[in-house]
């Protein structure tokens, strides 16, 4: 198929049917590898010319098959991913790189292998802390990932190929930052919903193709005539959002979502890989230390013997203050999908921090279904009134 559409139109097309491009590439002889969450090291896949394809859920699809092997009291996002897998929607993938992201993510990875037994499978065990020994352990894990991929493909990941892949991904990260810069003006040049669609699309196509598309989107957005209007500017924080319904609901209630701290957004793309003598050092550091998901335990000072709460909050959430300043944020919506413990435990601390820096906030919990969003709308409206 010849790709005709460009820029945002093409983004929307991929968003609507996100497997289509990967399937097309697969039909053309490329390998496609699924990956869970933001911890699998994508550079390794790109270096082997494998298409990385993020495993996401499908909010509109009822969960029917996963219930037989995963109870209903776990994160509905992860249940949805497994459900799609069991229904064969991910059959086009040559394998998966799973990761120890959270407890349920880990268990789902094992269930995935048990039931689906894909041709290639690797479980990346991400350490819990960022200690030096943990960074070394992460590096060892990445080494094994590289080895298993080389064995699977029969190809070598040379130093040059890996460097090239790191450059390509870093380029994408820089382009995403450039796109996010377009959300800084008031009103922003691109909506939160469109940004999210772009992020989903980038996670569904090869990185080089994503970079070209991003360039088109950036130049298109810069030249836009139909501007958004000025509204309260929000940052959205929390667990995964892979569907625009929630963001659209918030924006239609009278806000501009101008920034995010979620894993289909800045969390996945902002940190770049530093070029280090041994590229694995840079990769291990980026994927373990720089990715700011609360699944990783952090402390203000390594081995501190007394806890200073404010210092602790600063070290864990200081970057949010920078987002708030740079994107001129008026309020924060904290959201988490029900049964996400990783984010659930974090909520009061983030609220404490936002209180400390004087930014208004609300917390929304949802069950990863469009139907559940309606009652939340009233709360969002009340919050927006408060912001004035």
């Amino acid at each position, binding site marked *: 198929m010849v790709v005709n559409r460009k820029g945002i139109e093409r983004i929307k097309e991929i968003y609507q049917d996100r497997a289509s491009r990967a399937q097309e590439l697969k039909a053309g002889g490329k390998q496609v590898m699924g990956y869970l969450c933001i911890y699998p090291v994508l550079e390794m896949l790109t270096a082997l010319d494998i298409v990385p394809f993020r495993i996401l859920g499908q909010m509109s699809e009822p969960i029917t098959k996963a219930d037989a092997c995963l109870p209903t*009291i776990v994160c509905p996002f992860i249940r949805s991913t497994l459900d799609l897998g069991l229904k064969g929607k991910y059959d086009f993938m040559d394998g998966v790189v799973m990761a*120890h992201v959270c407890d349920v993510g880990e268990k789902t990875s094992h*269930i995935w292998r048990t039931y689906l*037994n894909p041709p290639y499978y690797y479980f990346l065990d991400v350490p*819990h*802390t960022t200690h030096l020994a943990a960074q070394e352990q992460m590096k060892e894990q990445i080494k094994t990932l590289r080895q298993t991929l080389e064995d699977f493909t029969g190809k070598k990941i040379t130093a040059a190929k890996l460097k090239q892949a790191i450059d390509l991904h870093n380029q994408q990260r820089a382009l995403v930052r450039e796109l996010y810069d377009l959300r800084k003006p008031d009103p922003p040049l691109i909506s939160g919903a469109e940004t999210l669609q772009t992020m989903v699309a980038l996670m569904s196509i090869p990185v080089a193709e994503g970079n070209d598309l991003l360039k088109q989107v950036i130049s298109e957005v810069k030249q836009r005539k139909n501007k958004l209007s000025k509204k309260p500017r929000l940052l959205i924080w929390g667990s995964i959002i892979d569907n625009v319904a929630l963001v659209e609901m918030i924006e239609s209630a009278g806000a501009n979502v101008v920034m995010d701290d979620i894993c289909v957004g800045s969390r996945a793309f902002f940190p770049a890989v530093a070029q280090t003598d041994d590229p694995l050092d840079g990769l291990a550091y980026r994927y373990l230390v720089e990715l700011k998901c609360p699944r990783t335990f952090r402390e203000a000072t390594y081995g501190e*013997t007394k806890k200073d*709460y404010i210092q602790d909050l600063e070290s864990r959430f200081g970057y949010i203050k920078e987002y708030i300043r740079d994107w001129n944020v008026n309020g924060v919506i904290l959201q988490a999908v029900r049964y996400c413990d990783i984010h659930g435990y974090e909520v009061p601390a983030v609220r404490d921090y936002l209180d400390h820096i004087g930014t208004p906030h609300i917390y929304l919990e949802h069950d990863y279904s469009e139907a559940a969003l309606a009652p939340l709308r009233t709360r969002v409206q009340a919050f927006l009134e408060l912001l004035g």
Partner: protein
Amino acid sequence: MMEQKKKKAINRLQTMYPLRANIDKMYERGVEASKTGKPTAWCMVNWWEADPILKAMDVEVVYPENYGAVCAAFGTAPAYLDRSDADGFPTHMCGYARNCIGYTSRMTELGQIPPEAPMGGMAKPFLLLCSGALCDARYKWFQALGRYLDAPVWTVEIPHIGVAESQDPATRAQVIKFMVKELGEFVKFMERMLNKKMDWDKLAEVTDDLIKVNRLWHEINELRKARPCPMHSRDFWSCMNASLYPAGDPKESLKLYQDMYTEVKDRVDKKIGAVANEKYRMLFAELPPWHDLKIFDELADRGWNFVVESWAYHPAKPIDTTKVSNPLERIAAETYHWLTGYFDEAYKAKEYMGYFAYPYLEWARTYQCDGGLLHPLLTCRTATNHLMLIQDRLLNKLKVPTLVAEGDIVDLKLFNHAETMRKAETLEEMMDHYKQKRRDEGLEW
């Protein structure tokens, strides 16, 4: 005429009582110790990775996860849960964690142990020790306590390698190296905290004692493979904390477990079962309904004998680490083995959830189980995630049917006793049916 007292359906072990009493003193000891100025740590279950270090450094340890069960049993949990909710913690989170958060919030406000706290309460900690093992709550919960306590938080690392990935010997070596490094850092940290040096001989001794405790406890559980099974799950749960947490002096626990071994062995020799007429040999997963343990008596009346249970509470299959001279390496090897001890067999069986799920498949065979009772918990994902998988694998691979009875760890109303008993009747029909099926398919029981 005196009414004849009905004989209890479960024949409890006499040696269980002194063991349980010793465990129950844990909180009192903590509070007493803190009054004398001895530091108390709050500690997550860490499967003997940090315990020996804390014991060797003479730190008093209490386990808030266990205290959650205590508060639930004493009826103080609801008020603590409300307090956690009011402080903004989502209600779907671990009931034990929310109980502890509410308790800590109240303790901080009062500036002392809340007067209503059962069993003397938990003394203010000087350290919060998290574990990365198996559950997100085990480190996120203590991190969240930072808004009430200025105690530092330390997380001990325990890698979660996949079943297939674990098959490479280099992986094991790397993991042990990592754990040893981390434990070394933990010792240095403790030395700074306590302003004293580690007594390495003492650590070696404590480690050795704990390994012996676990070996013996494992052997006791091996005896339960006998027909009839001499020891019921209720005795297991009553005594496990001397090993799991491990509460009390290991030397004393060792003596108490030794007495228990003798009693259980005697029962095996004399063919005395924990249930008079053992009709169904049962497995249980995962955390029991603490508040409704009497249901096991009713089930025992029907000939149900619970012969194995709660993988995460079981000690590891023993390995020989006596030749390992560095106690930290010995600790790492033991803890890693606890986590991965079933992996080789799981790998051969193409089962990739090597802990939590696969052990039940092995147990169903080796303990010759007729059925299982699975207990999903509304707020504990860790003890629930694998239950549907187990149900499917047990039935489809081993023809062992199971019953699912939902409940919670602190919201006691959720467990439906009457409905579970009704379901039990249906399960009996299935167990009879599948017993025949197993025979038809050449399975050995």
